[in-house]
């Protein structure tokens, strides 16, 4: 069953199998950056808690990295049985070869039946690799789960968010990523999860990848996937300065994150990491403000789960108005400065 020879080894790993086969044992892969837990992890935990409530079972967290003590500590109050931690300099960078290897090893050693993570570039890199190491299948961007008669069915979005597919997933263990917006963080639980350190033997880790560099735009603004409000700009913006002045200006007035449509990223006005849509980030804030965005289906795929959508666009026919709760037909160059001014004067 194990494709990867190393995945059967259990050196240094605690072994605990669920007493009843039918019970679920979920493992939630935590995501963190700069020593801080990423809140999307809690959406994945919310999914795990939902499965446990419906089908019975427990869930653990797995934290991989270097110097992740604070991250592990932060995860103890969410109802998990254990927080498994592999803390080692070799895991400092989120390289898929090593992280997937350790994830697969943890799954094999702990009798895990389901692995879940919030959909992100990290989990999309690591989970499919770990799944294949264990000869398992996977479903991406799950938005709902039903437990029926010992089995599970899952719902996920396909075709740029236009189609909702209902699917089953069989095999030795199920791997899933979930859309963070679809699952709320689990309620704080009374007990504290036990933290268990996993032994890491660096020489046994695969070594196909070498980290070279990272370029992150240092920004005082929140990340679009974590923000309560997102202000995004589209084709109507012609220069980086204009983008910063209008989109950035309104974002700062609202304490919001900034995002962009593909057209703006393609034109080189903003970095790729700001792109929202089918191939960029999926966000679902309380408030999404679309400035000069026409609303191609690929863009809508990344933001239509937002609670309130505002669109400001000069073109009354723009498809963005079909999903907007509040549409203002106006030139953003006039409307946005007025909006910023009135927000500031409150």
């Amino acid at each position, binding site marked *: 069953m194990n494709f990867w020879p190393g995945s059967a080894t259990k050196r240094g790993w605690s072994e605990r199998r669920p007493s009843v086969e039918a019970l679920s044992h979920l493992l939630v892969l935590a995501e963190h950056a700069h020593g801080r837990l990423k809140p999307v992890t809690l959406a994945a935990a919310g999914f795990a808690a939902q499965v446990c409530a419906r089908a019975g079972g427990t869930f653990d967290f797995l934290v991989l990295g270097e110097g992740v003590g604070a991250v592990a500590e932060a995860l103890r109050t969410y109802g998990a049985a254990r927080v498994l931690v592999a803390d080692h300099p070799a895991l400092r960078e989120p390289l898929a070869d090593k992280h997937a290897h350790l994830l697969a090893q943890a799954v094999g050693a702990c009798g895990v039946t389901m692995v879940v993570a919030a959909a992100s570039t990290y989990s999309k890199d690591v989970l499919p690799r770990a799944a294949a190491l264990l000869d398992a*299948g996977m479903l991406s961007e799950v938005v709902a789960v039903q437990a029926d008669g010992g089995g599970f069915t899952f719902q996920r979005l396909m075709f740029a968010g236009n*189609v909702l597919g209902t699917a*089953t997933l069989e095999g030795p263990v199920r791997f899933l990523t979930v859309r963070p917006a679809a699952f709320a963080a689990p309620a704080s639980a009374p007990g504290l999860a036990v933290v268990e350190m996993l032994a890491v033997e660096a020489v046994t880790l695969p070594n196909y990848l070498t980290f070279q560099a990272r370029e992150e735009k240092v920004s005082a603004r929140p990340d679009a996937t974590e923000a309560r409000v997102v202000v995004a700009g589209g084709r109507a913006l012609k220069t980086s300065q204009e983008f910063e002045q209008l989109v950035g200006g309104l974002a700062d007035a609202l304490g919001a994150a900034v995002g962009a449509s593909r057209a703006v990223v393609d034109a080189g006005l903003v970095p790729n990491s700001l792109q929202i849509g089918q191939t960029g980030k999926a966000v679902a804030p309380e408030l999404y403000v679309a400035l000069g965005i026409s609303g191609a289906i690929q863009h809508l795929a990344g933001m239509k789960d937002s609670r309130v959508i505002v669109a400001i666009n000069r073109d009354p026919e723009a498809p963005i108005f079909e999903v907007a709760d509040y549409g203002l037909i106006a030139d953003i160059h006039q409307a946005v400065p007025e909006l910023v001014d009135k927000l500031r004067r409150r």
Partner: protein
Amino acid sequence: MKILVAAKRVPDPDTRIRVRSDGAGIATEGVRFALNPFDAIALEAAIRLKEQGGASEIVVVGIDAETGVETLRAGLAMGADRAVLVREVAPLDPFAVAKLLAAVCRREQPQLILMGKQAIDDDCNQTGQMLAARLGIGQATFVSRLDLGPDQSTARCGRETDSGTETVTVTLPAVVTVDLRLNEPRYVTALGILRAKKKPIQEVTPAELGVDPTPRTRLLHLAPAPRRKAGVRVQSVDELLARLRDEARVV
């Protein structure tokens, strides 16, 4: 160096997708199919490497029913040298596709395997990673910059992550899945189409590859995703602010 490019046939990205009334699939009447846009970027990257002298042969691989031949011809017209079609009509998932591609890779022994980061039909983003694991080789995903090392034993890859760009070197052979910004795929020329007619397309079956293509996931039912209803048109910035404050309570 031999490069293998995986190519999936998907509905054209500009097609309006409708679900069949029985929920068993999408309506295909009148739908144009094309090479997955991300796979086209992967193929363009392979062709550029060959033009720069970094690659000797490009093999494009599809897994499909007979209709897959069209997509492979398009790939050959773009500039691939030959094609392999794994004939399979049953529904597959990335788990099964990775198994089939791994079997093809073991036959072909490419130094570099390129494919899109995701297919725009099922939006899974799994196949490349699963393939790399099955072959026991490295992977670089979300790649928007790709340079071969001086002795072609490594590739330097710029990766688009949620927080910015990350640069890694991956030991070859490896699987590289490509992102939007790697390049702009070329248009197929009339001469390219003419040349493609003479290029070989080899057909194999999963049984010939010794692979059981039973998927792990099964799609039971499709439905149109719930649509948002259009809200109200506000007449002024003042009205917008008032409604956001008093009605939606978000500012």
